[in-house]
Protein backbone atom coordinates (compact mmCIF):
# COMPACT_ATOMS: atom_id res chain seq x y z
CA UNK A 1 0.00 0.00 0.00
CA UNK A 2 2.64 2.60 0.93
CA UNK A 3 4.51 1.68 -2.21
CA UNK A 4 1.41 2.25 -4.34
CA UNK A 5 0.92 5.59 -2.62
CA UNK A 6 4.48 6.55 -3.35
CA UNK A 7 4.05 5.63 -6.99
CA UNK A 8 0.90 7.72 -7.11
CA UNK A 9 2.68 10.63 -5.51
CA UNK A 10 5.48 10.40 -8.01
CA UNK A 11 2.97 10.32 -10.85
CA UNK A 12 1.41 13.50 -9.53
CA UNK A 13 4.76 15.08 -8.91
CA UNK A 14 6.10 14.42 -12.39
CA UNK A 15 4.09 17.02 -14.33
CA UNK A 16 4.59 19.50 -11.49
CA UNK A 17 8.30 19.04 -11.78
CA UNK A 18 8.15 19.44 -15.54
CA UNK A 19 6.37 22.78 -15.21
CA UNK A 20 9.10 24.09 -12.95
CA UNK A 21 10.92 26.84 -14.87
CA UNK A 22 14.48 26.26 -15.88
CA UNK A 23 17.16 28.19 -14.04
CA UNK A 24 18.94 30.30 -16.60
CA UNK A 25 22.44 31.69 -16.22
CA UNK A 26 23.35 34.99 -17.80
CA UNK A 27 26.23 33.37 -19.69
CA UNK A 28 23.76 31.07 -21.47
CA UNK A 29 22.25 34.11 -23.11
CA UNK A 30 25.35 34.76 -25.18
CA UNK A 31 25.49 32.39 -28.17
CA UNK A 32 28.49 30.03 -27.94
CA UNK A 33 29.49 30.88 -31.50
CA UNK A 34 29.46 34.62 -30.82
CA UNK A 35 32.72 36.29 -31.83
CA UNK A 36 35.04 36.45 -28.87
CA UNK A 37 35.47 39.90 -27.50
CA UNK A 38 38.85 41.37 -28.16
CA UNK A 39 40.30 42.20 -24.78
CA UNK A 40 40.84 45.89 -24.38
CA UNK A 41 44.25 46.20 -22.82
CA UNK A 42 44.02 49.89 -22.11
CA UNK A 43 44.01 50.75 -18.42
CA UNK A 44 40.66 51.92 -17.07
CA UNK A 45 42.06 55.10 -15.63
CA UNK A 46 44.66 56.19 -18.10
CA UNK A 47 46.32 59.08 -16.30
CA UNK A 48 48.95 59.46 -19.01
CA UNK A 49 46.22 60.87 -21.26
CA UNK A 50 45.24 63.60 -18.85
CA UNK A 51 47.08 66.28 -20.78
CA UNK A 52 44.89 65.50 -23.78
CA UNK A 53 41.63 65.99 -21.92
CA UNK A 54 40.63 68.85 -24.17
CA UNK A 55 41.48 66.92 -27.31
CA UNK A 56 39.16 64.19 -26.14
CA UNK A 57 36.39 66.76 -25.68
CA UNK A 58 36.53 67.73 -29.32
CA UNK A 59 36.76 64.17 -30.63
CA UNK A 60 33.64 62.36 -31.91
CA UNK A 61 31.26 60.73 -29.43
CA UNK A 62 32.27 57.47 -27.83
CA UNK A 63 30.76 54.44 -29.53
CA UNK A 64 28.85 51.87 -27.56
CA UNK A 65 30.31 48.36 -27.37
CA UNK A 66 28.01 45.82 -29.03
CA UNK A 67 24.70 47.69 -29.15
CA UNK A 68 23.25 44.82 -31.17
CA UNK A 69 24.81 41.75 -29.58
CA UNK A 70 23.77 38.32 -30.91
CA UNK A 71 21.01 36.47 -29.05
CA UNK A 72 20.34 32.77 -28.44
CA UNK A 73 17.26 32.04 -30.53
CA UNK A 74 16.60 28.63 -28.90
CA UNK A 75 15.63 30.31 -25.61
CA UNK A 76 12.48 31.68 -27.24
CA UNK A 77 9.31 30.49 -25.51
CA UNK A 78 11.20 28.72 -22.75
CA UNK A 79 9.89 29.11 -19.23
CA UNK A 80 12.86 30.31 -17.22
CA UNK A 81 13.93 31.63 -13.86
CA UNK A 82 16.62 34.27 -13.97
CA UNK A 83 18.28 36.25 -11.18
CA UNK A 84 19.23 39.87 -11.65
CA UNK A 85 18.98 43.48 -10.59
CA UNK A 86 15.91 45.55 -11.40
CA UNK A 87 16.28 48.88 -13.17
CA UNK A 88 12.82 50.48 -12.99
CA UNK A 89 11.30 52.02 -16.12
CA UNK A 90 7.65 52.47 -15.16
CA UNK A 91 6.45 53.05 -11.61
CA UNK A 92 2.73 52.85 -10.87
CA UNK A 93 0.91 55.22 -8.54
CA UNK A 94 1.05 52.62 -5.79
CA UNK A 95 4.82 52.77 -6.10
CA UNK A 96 5.11 49.37 -7.79
CA UNK A 97 7.53 48.90 -10.64
CA UNK A 98 5.58 47.40 -13.54
CA UNK A 99 8.19 47.61 -16.28
CA UNK A 100 11.89 47.26 -15.82
CA UNK A 101 15.21 46.11 -17.24
CA UNK A 102 16.83 43.09 -15.64
CA UNK A 103 20.62 43.17 -15.64
CA UNK A 104 23.30 40.86 -14.22
CA UNK A 105 25.06 43.66 -12.39
CA UNK A 106 24.07 47.11 -11.37
CA UNK A 107 25.39 50.04 -9.51
CA UNK A 108 27.90 52.74 -9.44
CA UNK A 109 30.58 51.18 -11.60
CA UNK A 110 30.87 53.60 -14.49
CA UNK A 111 34.38 52.51 -15.43
CA UNK A 112 33.19 49.99 -17.99
CA UNK A 113 30.44 50.32 -20.60
CA UNK A 114 26.95 49.05 -19.72
CA UNK A 115 26.12 45.38 -20.39
CA UNK A 116 25.67 44.47 -24.07
CA UNK A 117 22.13 44.07 -25.34
CA UNK A 118 22.15 40.28 -24.86
CA UNK A 119 22.77 40.76 -21.16
CA UNK A 120 19.66 42.87 -20.62
CA UNK A 121 16.11 41.54 -20.33
CA UNK A 122 13.16 43.88 -20.79
CA UNK A 123 10.55 42.66 -18.30
CA UNK A 124 6.90 43.59 -17.97
CA UNK A 125 4.82 42.61 -14.98
CA UNK A 126 1.11 42.98 -14.42
CA UNK A 127 1.24 43.28 -10.62
CA UNK A 128 4.66 44.81 -10.45
CA UNK A 129 7.13 44.69 -7.63
CA UNK A 130 7.65 47.09 -4.77
CA UNK A 131 11.30 48.04 -4.79
CA UNK A 132 12.85 49.08 -1.53
CA UNK A 133 16.32 49.56 -2.86
CA UNK A 134 18.02 49.25 -6.20
CA UNK A 135 20.79 46.99 -4.95
CA UNK A 136 18.53 44.06 -4.11
CA UNK A 137 18.67 41.18 -6.61
CA UNK A 138 15.45 39.37 -7.55
CA UNK A 139 14.43 36.11 -9.19
CA UNK A 140 12.19 36.61 -12.21
CA UNK A 141 10.08 33.72 -13.47
CA UNK A 142 8.26 33.65 -16.77
CA UNK A 143 8.37 32.78 -20.45
CA UNK A 144 11.30 34.19 -22.40
CA UNK A 145 10.81 35.92 -25.73
CA UNK A 146 13.73 36.39 -28.05
CA UNK A 147 13.56 39.19 -30.58
CA UNK A 148 16.16 39.06 -33.30
CA UNK A 149 17.53 42.23 -34.78
CA UNK A 150 15.40 43.65 -37.58
CA UNK A 151 17.38 46.65 -38.69
CA UNK A 152 20.34 48.72 -37.76
CA UNK A 153 18.48 50.15 -34.81
CA UNK A 154 19.52 48.29 -31.69
CA UNK A 155 16.29 46.51 -30.89
CA UNK A 156 17.44 42.93 -30.57
CA UNK A 157 17.22 41.35 -27.19
CA UNK A 158 15.35 39.40 -24.61
CA UNK A 159 11.90 40.12 -23.24
CA UNK A 160 9.98 38.48 -20.43
CA UNK A 161 6.46 38.60 -19.08
CA UNK A 162 7.14 38.12 -15.39
CA UNK A 163 4.78 35.74 -13.63
CA UNK A 164 6.64 35.69 -10.36
CA UNK A 165 9.12 38.11 -8.86
CA UNK A 166 10.78 37.36 -5.57
CA UNK A 167 13.83 38.36 -3.61
CA UNK A 168 17.04 36.53 -4.43
CA UNK A 169 18.72 35.25 -1.34
CA UNK A 170 22.25 34.04 -1.07
CA UNK A 171 22.41 30.25 -0.88
CA UNK A 172 24.15 29.00 2.24
Amino acid at each position, binding site marked *: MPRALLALLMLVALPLWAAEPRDLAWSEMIPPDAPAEVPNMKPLHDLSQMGDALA*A*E*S*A*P*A*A*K*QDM*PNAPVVQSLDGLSVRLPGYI*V*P*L*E*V*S*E*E*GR*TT*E*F*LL*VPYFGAC*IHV*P*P*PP*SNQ*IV*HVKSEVGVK*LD*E*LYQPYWIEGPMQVKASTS*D*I*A*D*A*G*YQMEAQKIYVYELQE
Partner: protein
Amino acid sequence: MYLFRLAMASLANRRFTAILTAFAIALSVCLLLAVERVRTEARASFASTISGTDLIVGARSGSVNLLLYSVFRIGNATNNIRWDSFEHFANSPKVKWAIPISLGDSHRGYRVMGTTEAYFEHYQYGHQQNLQLASGREFASDPFEVVLGAEVAEALHYKLGDKLVLAHGVAAISLVKHDDKPFTVVGILKRTGTPVDRTLHISLGGMEAIHIDWHNGVPAQGSGRISADQARNMDLTPQAITAFMLGLNSKIATFAVQREINEYRGEPMLAILPGVALQELWSLMGTAEKALFVVSLFVVLTGLIGMLTAILTSLNERRREMAILRSVGARPWHIATLLVLEAFALALFGVLAGLGLLYLGIALAQGYVQSTYGLYLPLAWPSEYEWTLLGGILIAALLMGSVPAWRAYRQSLADGLSIRL
Protein backbone atom coordinates in the same frame (compact mmCIF):
# COMPACT_ATOMS: atom_id res chain seq x y z
CA MET B 1 -24.88 45.91 26.69
CA TYR B 2 -25.98 47.34 30.04
CA LEU B 3 -22.31 47.39 31.02
CA PHE B 4 -21.58 49.56 28.00
CA ARG B 5 -24.45 51.89 28.95
CA LEU B 6 -23.08 52.04 32.45
CA ALA B 7 -19.60 52.83 31.13
CA MET B 8 -21.07 55.59 28.98
CA ALA B 9 -23.02 57.02 31.89
CA SER B 10 -19.92 56.92 34.03
CA LEU B 11 -17.92 58.75 31.36
CA ALA B 12 -20.72 61.30 30.95
CA ASN B 13 -20.50 61.96 34.67
CA ARG B 14 -16.85 62.95 34.25
CA ARG B 15 -17.39 64.53 30.89
CA PHE B 16 -14.79 67.27 31.14
CA THR B 17 -11.85 64.92 31.75
CA ALA B 18 -13.31 62.43 29.29
CA ILE B 19 -13.60 65.00 26.50
CA LEU B 20 -10.07 66.28 27.12
CA THR B 21 -8.67 62.75 27.08
CA ALA B 22 -10.53 61.87 23.89
CA PHE B 23 -9.41 65.15 22.35
CA ALA B 24 -5.76 64.38 23.11
CA ILE B 25 -6.17 61.01 21.40
CA ALA B 26 -8.01 62.67 18.51
CA LEU B 27 -5.17 65.11 17.92
CA SER B 28 -2.57 62.36 17.94
CA VAL B 29 -4.65 60.18 15.61
CA CYS B 30 -5.12 63.12 13.27
CA LEU B 31 -1.37 63.75 13.21
CA LEU B 32 -0.58 60.10 12.52
CA LEU B 33 -3.09 59.88 9.67
CA ALA B 34 -2.05 63.22 8.21
CA VAL B 35 1.61 62.18 8.11
CA GLU B 36 0.63 58.89 6.52
CA ARG B 37 -1.63 60.50 3.95
CA VAL B 38 0.82 63.19 2.92
CA ARG B 39 3.50 60.50 2.57
CA THR B 40 1.44 58.21 0.33
CA GLU B 41 0.01 61.06 -1.73
CA ALA B 42 3.42 62.63 -2.23
CA ARG B 43 4.75 59.30 -3.48
CA ALA B 44 1.76 58.70 -5.73
CA SER B 45 1.92 62.16 -7.25
CA PHE B 46 5.64 61.85 -7.88
CA ALA B 47 5.25 58.41 -9.42
CA SER B 48 2.34 59.45 -11.64
CA THR B 49 4.00 62.58 -13.02
CA ILE B 50 6.18 60.88 -15.56
CA SER B 51 5.53 57.81 -17.65
CA GLY B 52 6.80 56.43 -20.92
CA THR B 53 9.94 58.59 -20.95
CA ASP B 54 13.11 56.52 -21.22
CA LEU B 55 15.76 59.13 -20.55
CA ILE B 56 15.93 62.69 -19.26
CA VAL B 57 18.98 64.64 -20.33
CA GLY B 58 20.33 67.86 -18.90
CA ALA B 59 23.54 69.62 -17.99
CA ARG B 60 25.78 67.56 -15.78
CA SER B 61 24.64 67.76 -12.15
CA GLY B 62 22.95 65.09 -10.05
CA SER B 63 20.29 62.63 -11.15
CA VAL B 64 17.78 63.65 -8.45
CA ASN B 65 18.40 67.32 -9.13
CA LEU B 66 17.85 66.85 -12.87
CA LEU B 67 14.65 64.88 -12.27
CA LEU B 68 13.33 67.50 -9.84
CA TYR B 69 13.83 70.54 -12.02
CA SER B 70 12.96 69.01 -15.38
CA VAL B 71 9.83 67.14 -14.36
CA PHE B 72 8.63 68.49 -11.04
CA ARG B 73 9.72 72.12 -11.50
CA ILE B 74 11.45 72.05 -8.12
CA GLY B 75 14.78 73.82 -7.93
CA ASN B 76 16.71 75.14 -10.88
CA ALA B 77 19.06 73.93 -13.55
CA THR B 78 22.78 74.37 -13.05
CA ASN B 79 23.41 75.08 -16.70
CA ASN B 80 21.86 74.97 -20.14
CA ILE B 81 22.82 72.59 -22.92
CA ARG B 82 23.44 73.52 -26.50
CA TRP B 83 20.78 73.21 -29.16
CA ASP B 84 23.08 71.24 -31.47
CA SER B 85 23.64 68.64 -28.73
CA PHE B 86 19.89 68.19 -28.57
CA GLU B 87 19.67 67.88 -32.34
CA HIS B 88 22.50 65.36 -32.37
CA PHE B 89 20.60 62.97 -30.10
CA ALA B 90 17.10 63.78 -31.36
CA ASN B 91 18.21 62.59 -34.81
CA SER B 92 19.87 59.42 -33.52
CA PRO B 93 18.38 56.25 -35.09
CA LYS B 94 17.80 54.77 -31.62
CA VAL B 95 15.61 57.69 -30.58
CA LYS B 96 11.90 57.59 -31.33
CA TRP B 97 10.96 61.02 -30.04
CA ALA B 98 12.60 63.91 -28.22
CA ILE B 99 11.06 66.77 -26.25
CA PRO B 100 13.22 69.84 -25.63
CA ILE B 101 12.52 71.86 -22.47
CA SER B 102 13.54 75.40 -21.69
CA LEU B 103 12.91 76.74 -18.20
CA GLY B 104 13.70 79.80 -16.13
CA ASP B 105 10.82 82.26 -16.53
CA SER B 106 7.54 82.48 -14.72
CA HIS B 107 4.15 84.10 -14.57
CA ARG B 108 2.87 85.07 -11.11
CA GLY B 109 4.70 82.22 -9.46
CA TYR B 110 3.83 79.61 -12.06
CA ARG B 111 6.74 78.28 -14.09
CA VAL B 112 6.93 78.89 -17.81
CA MET B 113 8.24 76.07 -19.98
CA GLY B 114 9.42 76.48 -23.55
CA THR B 115 8.96 73.34 -25.61
CA THR B 116 7.76 72.05 -28.99
CA GLU B 117 4.63 70.32 -30.28
CA ALA B 118 6.39 67.03 -29.45
CA TYR B 119 5.55 67.70 -25.81
CA PHE B 120 1.79 67.48 -26.41
CA GLU B 121 2.27 64.45 -28.58
CA HIS B 122 4.70 62.36 -26.54
CA TYR B 123 4.76 63.49 -22.91
CA GLN B 124 2.91 60.97 -20.79
CA TYR B 125 1.88 60.89 -17.16
CA GLY B 126 0.03 58.50 -14.84
CA HIS B 127 -0.66 55.25 -16.61
CA GLN B 128 0.79 56.22 -20.00
CA GLN B 129 -1.81 58.92 -20.55
CA ASN B 130 -1.19 61.70 -23.03
CA LEU B 131 -1.91 65.35 -22.34
CA GLN B 132 -5.28 66.55 -23.56
CA LEU B 133 -6.62 69.99 -24.29
CA ALA B 134 -9.71 71.07 -22.38
CA SER B 135 -10.23 73.92 -24.81
CA GLY B 136 -8.44 75.71 -27.62
CA ARG B 137 -5.44 74.32 -29.46
CA GLU B 138 -1.71 73.79 -29.12
CA PHE B 139 0.59 76.71 -29.79
CA ALA B 140 1.39 77.08 -33.47
CA SER B 141 3.89 79.02 -35.56
CA ASP B 142 3.34 82.39 -33.86
CA PRO B 143 5.89 82.64 -31.04
CA PHE B 144 3.61 84.61 -28.71
CA GLU B 145 1.09 81.91 -27.93
CA VAL B 146 0.73 80.14 -24.62
CA VAL B 147 -1.01 76.94 -23.53
CA LEU B 148 -1.98 76.96 -19.86
CA GLY B 149 -2.04 74.15 -17.36
CA ALA B 150 -5.46 73.56 -15.79
CA GLU B 151 -4.62 75.08 -12.45
CA VAL B 152 -2.97 78.21 -13.86
CA ALA B 153 -6.11 78.94 -15.86
CA GLU B 154 -8.37 78.27 -12.88
CA ALA B 155 -6.41 80.14 -10.23
CA LEU B 156 -5.73 83.21 -12.37
CA HIS B 157 -9.11 83.14 -14.17
CA TYR B 158 -7.70 83.08 -17.68
CA LYS B 159 -9.71 82.12 -20.71
CA LEU B 160 -8.90 81.70 -24.38
CA GLY B 161 -7.79 84.92 -26.07
CA ASP B 162 -6.56 86.60 -22.87
CA LYS B 163 -3.21 88.37 -22.99
CA LEU B 164 -0.61 87.82 -20.31
CA VAL B 165 2.90 89.03 -19.59
CA LEU B 166 5.68 86.69 -18.53
CA ALA B 167 8.19 87.59 -15.84
CA HIS B 168 11.91 87.06 -15.83
CA GLY B 169 13.07 84.57 -13.22
CA VAL B 170 10.92 82.29 -11.10
CA ALA B 171 9.93 84.52 -8.17
CA ALA B 172 6.22 84.85 -7.44
CA ILE B 173 6.52 88.64 -7.39
CA SER B 174 8.89 89.62 -10.15
CA LEU B 175 10.25 93.10 -10.69
CA VAL B 176 11.50 92.47 -14.21
CA LYS B 177 8.80 91.61 -16.69
CA HIS B 178 8.80 90.86 -20.39
CA ASP B 179 5.93 93.33 -20.75
CA ASP B 180 6.80 94.47 -24.25
CA LYS B 181 5.92 91.03 -25.60
CA PRO B 182 2.55 89.83 -24.30
CA PHE B 183 1.37 86.28 -24.94
CA THR B 184 -2.09 85.15 -26.05
CA VAL B 185 -3.79 82.18 -24.42
CA VAL B 186 -4.60 79.72 -27.22
CA GLY B 187 -5.21 76.55 -25.26
CA ILE B 188 -5.94 75.20 -21.79
CA LEU B 189 -4.95 71.66 -20.85
CA LYS B 190 -7.13 69.18 -18.99
CA ARG B 191 -6.31 68.61 -15.34
CA THR B 192 -3.66 65.94 -14.83
CA GLY B 193 -2.88 66.14 -11.11
CA THR B 194 0.80 66.69 -11.97
CA PRO B 195 3.07 69.76 -12.15
CA VAL B 196 1.86 70.19 -15.76
CA ASP B 197 -1.25 71.83 -14.26
CA ARG B 198 0.92 74.56 -12.80
CA THR B 199 2.92 75.27 -15.93
CA LEU B 200 2.54 77.72 -18.79
CA HIS B 201 3.71 76.19 -22.05
CA ILE B 202 5.17 78.36 -24.78
CA SER B 203 7.12 77.47 -27.90
CA LEU B 204 10.90 77.52 -27.86
CA GLY B 205 10.65 80.36 -30.38
CA GLY B 206 8.61 82.34 -27.85
CA MET B 207 11.18 81.71 -25.15
CA GLU B 208 13.86 82.92 -27.54
CA ALA B 209 11.81 85.96 -28.59
CA ILE B 210 11.27 87.36 -25.08
CA HIS B 211 15.01 87.28 -24.46
CA ILE B 212 16.12 88.35 -27.91
CA ASP B 213 16.88 91.97 -27.06
CA TRP B 214 18.48 91.20 -23.71
CA HIS B 215 22.12 92.17 -23.47
CA ASN B 216 24.45 91.57 -20.57
CA GLY B 217 21.57 90.39 -18.40
CA VAL B 218 19.30 93.43 -18.79
CA PRO B 219 16.60 94.18 -21.31
CA ALA B 220 17.63 96.59 -24.04
CA GLN B 221 16.81 100.25 -23.54
CA GLY B 222 15.38 102.75 -25.98
CA SER B 223 16.24 102.17 -29.61
CA GLY B 224 17.88 98.82 -28.85
CA ARG B 225 14.50 97.32 -28.12
CA ILE B 226 13.06 94.78 -30.50
CA SER B 227 9.28 94.82 -30.71
CA ALA B 228 7.14 91.72 -30.80
CA ASP B 229 6.47 92.22 -34.51
CA GLN B 230 10.15 92.57 -35.30
CA ALA B 231 10.91 89.48 -33.27
CA ARG B 232 8.34 87.50 -35.26
CA ASN B 233 10.40 88.05 -38.40
CA MET B 234 13.69 86.99 -36.87
CA ASP B 235 15.26 83.56 -36.69
CA LEU B 236 14.07 82.23 -33.38
CA THR B 237 15.96 78.93 -33.35
CA PRO B 238 17.18 78.62 -29.77
CA GLN B 239 20.88 78.51 -28.97
CA ALA B 240 20.40 76.55 -25.79
CA ILE B 241 17.76 74.59 -23.90
CA THR B 242 17.58 73.43 -20.29
CA ALA B 243 16.92 69.73 -20.71
CA PHE B 244 15.28 67.19 -22.98
CA MET B 245 13.31 63.97 -22.68
CA LEU B 246 13.87 60.98 -24.92
CA GLY B 247 11.73 58.04 -25.95
CA LEU B 248 13.68 55.18 -27.47
CA ASN B 249 12.81 52.63 -30.12
CA SER B 250 14.01 49.81 -27.91
CA LYS B 251 14.08 49.85 -24.13
CA ILE B 252 17.05 47.49 -24.28
CA ALA B 253 19.10 50.28 -25.83
CA THR B 254 18.45 52.55 -22.80
CA PHE B 255 21.83 51.93 -21.20
CA ALA B 256 23.64 52.25 -24.50
CA VAL B 257 22.08 55.65 -25.24
CA GLN B 258 22.59 56.76 -21.66
CA ARG B 259 26.26 55.91 -21.87
CA GLU B 260 26.55 57.60 -25.24
CA ILE B 261 25.07 60.82 -23.83
CA ASN B 262 27.16 60.75 -20.66
CA GLU B 263 30.30 60.23 -22.75
CA TYR B 264 29.31 62.80 -25.37
CA ARG B 265 32.38 64.75 -26.38
CA GLY B 266 30.45 67.83 -27.47
CA GLU B 267 29.67 69.03 -23.96
CA PRO B 268 29.21 67.50 -20.52
CA MET B 269 25.68 66.13 -20.20
CA LEU B 270 23.85 63.80 -17.88
CA ALA B 271 21.23 61.25 -18.92
CA ILE B 272 19.07 59.62 -16.26
CA LEU B 273 16.44 56.91 -16.20
CA PRO B 274 13.44 58.57 -14.51
CA GLY B 275 12.48 55.36 -12.68
CA VAL B 276 15.95 54.97 -11.19
CA ALA B 277 16.17 58.62 -10.17
CA LEU B 278 12.73 58.35 -8.57
CA GLN B 279 13.89 55.30 -6.63
CA GLU B 280 16.92 57.26 -5.44
CA LEU B 281 14.63 60.06 -4.36
CA TRP B 282 12.50 57.57 -2.37
CA SER B 283 15.45 56.17 -0.50
CA LEU B 284 16.52 59.75 0.23
CA MET B 285 13.10 60.68 1.55
CA GLY B 286 12.57 57.29 3.20
CA THR B 287 14.62 58.23 6.25
CA ALA B 288 12.71 61.44 6.86
CA GLU B 289 9.42 59.64 6.31
CA LYS B 290 10.30 56.95 8.83
CA ALA B 291 11.37 59.56 11.38
CA LEU B 292 8.07 61.44 10.96
CA PHE B 293 6.13 58.20 11.26
CA VAL B 294 7.94 57.17 14.44
CA VAL B 295 7.38 60.62 15.96
CA SER B 296 3.67 60.49 15.21
CA LEU B 297 3.46 56.96 16.64
CA PHE B 298 4.98 58.25 19.85
CA VAL B 299 2.47 61.08 19.93
CA VAL B 300 -0.32 58.49 19.73
CA LEU B 301 1.33 56.54 22.52
CA THR B 302 1.48 59.72 24.62
CA GLY B 303 -2.22 60.27 24.02
CA LEU B 304 -3.02 56.73 25.12
CA ILE B 305 -0.83 57.03 28.22
CA GLY B 306 -2.68 60.24 29.05
CA MET B 307 -5.89 58.25 28.91
CA LEU B 308 -4.42 55.54 31.14
CA THR B 309 -3.35 58.14 33.69
CA ALA B 310 -6.80 59.71 33.68
CA ILE B 311 -8.51 56.37 34.31
CA LEU B 312 -6.02 55.28 36.97
CA THR B 313 -6.41 58.55 38.83
CA SER B 314 -10.16 58.32 38.73
CA LEU B 315 -9.97 54.79 40.09
CA ASN B 316 -9.14 56.04 43.56
CA GLU B 317 -12.06 58.47 43.61
CA ARG B 318 -14.39 55.78 42.40
CA ARG B 319 -13.69 53.18 45.08
CA ARG B 320 -17.09 53.86 46.58
CA GLU B 321 -18.80 53.62 43.19
CA MET B 322 -17.15 50.25 42.61
CA ALA B 323 -18.12 49.06 46.09
CA ILE B 324 -21.74 50.04 45.53
CA LEU B 325 -21.75 48.20 42.24
CA ARG B 326 -20.27 45.17 43.94
CA SER B 327 -22.78 45.35 46.78
CA VAL B 328 -25.71 45.35 44.38
CA GLY B 329 -24.40 42.17 42.80
CA ALA B 330 -21.76 43.09 40.23
CA ARG B 331 -18.99 40.54 40.03
CA PRO B 332 -15.30 41.54 39.89
CA TRP B 333 -15.19 40.81 36.15
CA HIS B 334 -18.12 43.17 35.67
CA ILE B 335 -16.08 45.94 37.20
CA ALA B 336 -13.05 45.00 35.08
CA THR B 337 -15.12 44.95 31.88
CA LEU B 338 -16.60 48.31 32.81
CA LEU B 339 -13.14 49.88 32.97
CA VAL B 340 -11.92 48.23 29.76
CA LEU B 341 -15.06 49.47 28.03
CA GLU B 342 -14.45 52.97 29.30
CA ALA B 343 -10.93 52.97 27.90
CA PHE B 344 -12.19 51.56 24.62
CA ALA B 345 -14.97 54.12 24.37
CA LEU B 346 -12.52 56.95 25.01
CA ALA B 347 -10.17 55.66 22.33
CA LEU B 348 -13.06 55.14 19.92
CA PHE B 349 -14.26 58.70 20.43
CA GLY B 350 -10.68 59.83 19.99
CA VAL B 351 -10.23 57.90 16.74
CA LEU B 352 -13.54 59.10 15.32
CA ALA B 353 -12.86 62.69 16.30
CA GLY B 354 -9.34 62.33 14.89
CA LEU B 355 -10.77 61.16 11.57
CA GLY B 356 -13.20 64.07 11.67
CA LEU B 357 -10.35 66.50 12.35
CA LEU B 358 -8.32 64.98 9.52
CA TYR B 359 -11.13 65.36 6.98
CA LEU B 360 -11.90 68.85 8.21
CA GLY B 361 -8.23 69.73 7.87
CA ILE B 362 -8.01 68.23 4.38
CA ALA B 363 -11.18 70.00 3.27
CA LEU B 364 -9.86 73.32 4.54
CA ALA B 365 -6.25 72.97 3.36
CA GLN B 366 -6.85 71.10 0.10
CA GLY B 367 -6.82 74.13 -2.17
CA TYR B 368 -3.91 75.79 -0.44
CA VAL B 369 -1.75 72.65 -0.38
CA GLN B 370 -2.45 71.98 -4.03
CA SER B 371 -1.63 75.48 -5.25
CA THR B 372 1.41 75.89 -3.01
CA TYR B 373 2.94 72.44 -3.00
CA GLY B 374 1.23 70.82 -5.95
CA LEU B 375 0.08 68.00 -3.73
CA TYR B 376 -3.46 66.82 -4.21
CA LEU B 377 -4.96 65.46 -0.98
CA PRO B 378 -8.16 63.58 -1.83
CA LEU B 379 -11.07 63.36 0.64
CA ALA B 380 -10.95 59.58 0.27
CA TRP B 381 -11.92 56.86 2.71
CA PRO B 382 -9.07 55.60 4.87
CA SER B 383 -6.91 53.09 3.03
CA GLU B 384 -6.43 49.52 4.18
CA TYR B 385 -3.21 50.52 5.87
CA GLU B 386 -4.86 53.43 7.68
CA TRP B 387 -7.63 51.13 8.93
CA THR B 388 -4.91 48.84 10.27
CA LEU B 389 -3.31 51.77 12.10
CA LEU B 390 -6.67 52.79 13.59
CA GLY B 391 -7.40 49.19 14.60
CA GLY B 392 -3.96 49.03 16.20
CA ILE B 393 -4.72 52.15 18.25
CA LEU B 394 -8.01 50.65 19.49
CA ILE B 395 -6.31 47.39 20.43
CA ALA B 396 -3.59 49.33 22.24
CA ALA B 397 -6.34 51.20 24.13
CA LEU B 398 -7.96 47.88 25.11
CA LEU B 399 -4.63 46.60 26.42
CA MET B 400 -4.07 49.83 28.35
CA GLY B 401 -7.60 49.66 29.73
CA SER B 402 -6.81 46.26 31.17
CA VAL B 403 -4.32 47.83 33.61
CA PRO B 404 -6.92 49.76 35.66
CA ALA B 405 -9.32 46.86 35.08
CA TRP B 406 -6.89 44.49 36.74
CA ARG B 407 -6.42 46.81 39.69
CA ALA B 408 -10.16 47.24 40.13
CA TYR B 409 -10.62 43.49 39.81
CA ARG B 410 -8.21 42.93 42.66
CA GLN B 411 -9.81 45.45 45.01
CA SER B 412 -12.06 43.78 47.50
CA LEU B 413 -15.61 44.77 48.27
CA ALA B 414 -14.64 45.89 51.77
CA ASP B 415 -11.96 48.17 50.37
CA GLY B 416 -14.53 50.53 48.93
CA LEU B 417 -17.00 50.34 51.77
CA SER B 418 -14.60 51.20 54.53
CA ILE B 419 -12.82 54.22 53.20
CA ARG B 420 -9.73 55.15 55.10
CA LEU B 421 -9.02 58.82 55.01
